[in-house]
């Protein structure tokens, strides 16, 4: 062993390696805000679509959903681009591809159903909830995050219930699921993000 290296020096270097590898692998990307943003977007679309009429999911104002969704996509992309870049990790790429592919599928399907006039509130909610249950479930499993898996379970229950309940019950169920899985979960995730983003110690040459 080199004379200048003590056992303590060696341990410190091993600890530094472990800390830095863990720091790199830590899921540093903060996406809690997207849940909140999309929760608000769903509420805006639902209330705008039913403006001046009894509250239903699809409503009579057919431009409400497409315009709100396109605006939400634009806002999400604009905020994401401006945020501090994070390192590329396999988990990050897996989650990014999962959510973007889910979003594209859901958008295309909803747009096609809407433009063909074959959209119906129960089917629409069942599809949206199933897609969101799938994405949250997969994401929660990858991250081993029980709160997100719980969120997926709520969406799956919503998807099943949507096939059986009345139109007024459907609205209540969907609004409640959005509140729990988007608004509450989004705020919870943002709180965790804020706690996690503490700066690390300095390392000198």
């Amino acid at each position, binding site marked *: 062993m080199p004379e200048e290296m003590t*056992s303590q020096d060696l341990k410190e270097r091993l600890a530094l390696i472990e800390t830095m590898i863990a720091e790199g692998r830590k899921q540093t990307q903060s996406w809690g805000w997207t849940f909140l943003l999309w929760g608000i977007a769903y509420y805006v679309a639902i209330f705008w679509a039913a403006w001046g009429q009894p509250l239903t999911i699809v409503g009579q104002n057919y431009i409400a959903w497409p315009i709100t969704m396109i605006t939400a996509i634009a806002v999400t992309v604009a905020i994401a681009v401006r945020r501090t870049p994070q390192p590329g990790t396999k988990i990050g790429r897996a989650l990014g591809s999962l959510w973007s592919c889910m979003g594209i599928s859901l958008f295309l399907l909803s747009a096609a159903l809407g433009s063909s006039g074959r959209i119906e509130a129960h089917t629409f909610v069942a599809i949206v909830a199933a897609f969101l249950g799938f994405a949250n479930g997969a994401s929660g499993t990858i991250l081993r995050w029980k709160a997100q898996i719980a969120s997926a379970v709520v969406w799956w229950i919503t998807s099943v219930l949507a096939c059986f309940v009345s139109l007024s019950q459907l609205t209540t169920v969907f609004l409640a699921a959005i509140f729990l899985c988007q608004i509450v979960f989004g705020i919870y995730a943002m709180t965790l993000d804020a706690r996690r983003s503490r700066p690390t110690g300095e390392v000198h040459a």
Partner: protein
Amino acid sequence: MPELPELNPVIHGKLRLALLSLLAGVEEAEFTWLRAQTGSTDGNLGAQLLKLEEVGYVVADKKFVQRKPQTTYRLTETGRSALTDYVRALKQLLGASINA
């Protein structure tokens, strides 16, 4: 008595060791992220990364994103292997110091 290993002097510097370890945990990372994680200055970080690049332990990819320069670093196979050897040597030395 087995001969004790030499520690790789390129990796031995604390900042270079931290950089290689950080890059071992990600696919690639930007200069700004590495700076934030290490708390290092631009000049020092740039110099240490250049040294690692010269010996082939990291590769840099320079591009423009929204008209701003962006440099991304990635650990090479040589770098990963050097880091693994360094950790192995450290553990061996530590074992020797415990048994001394």
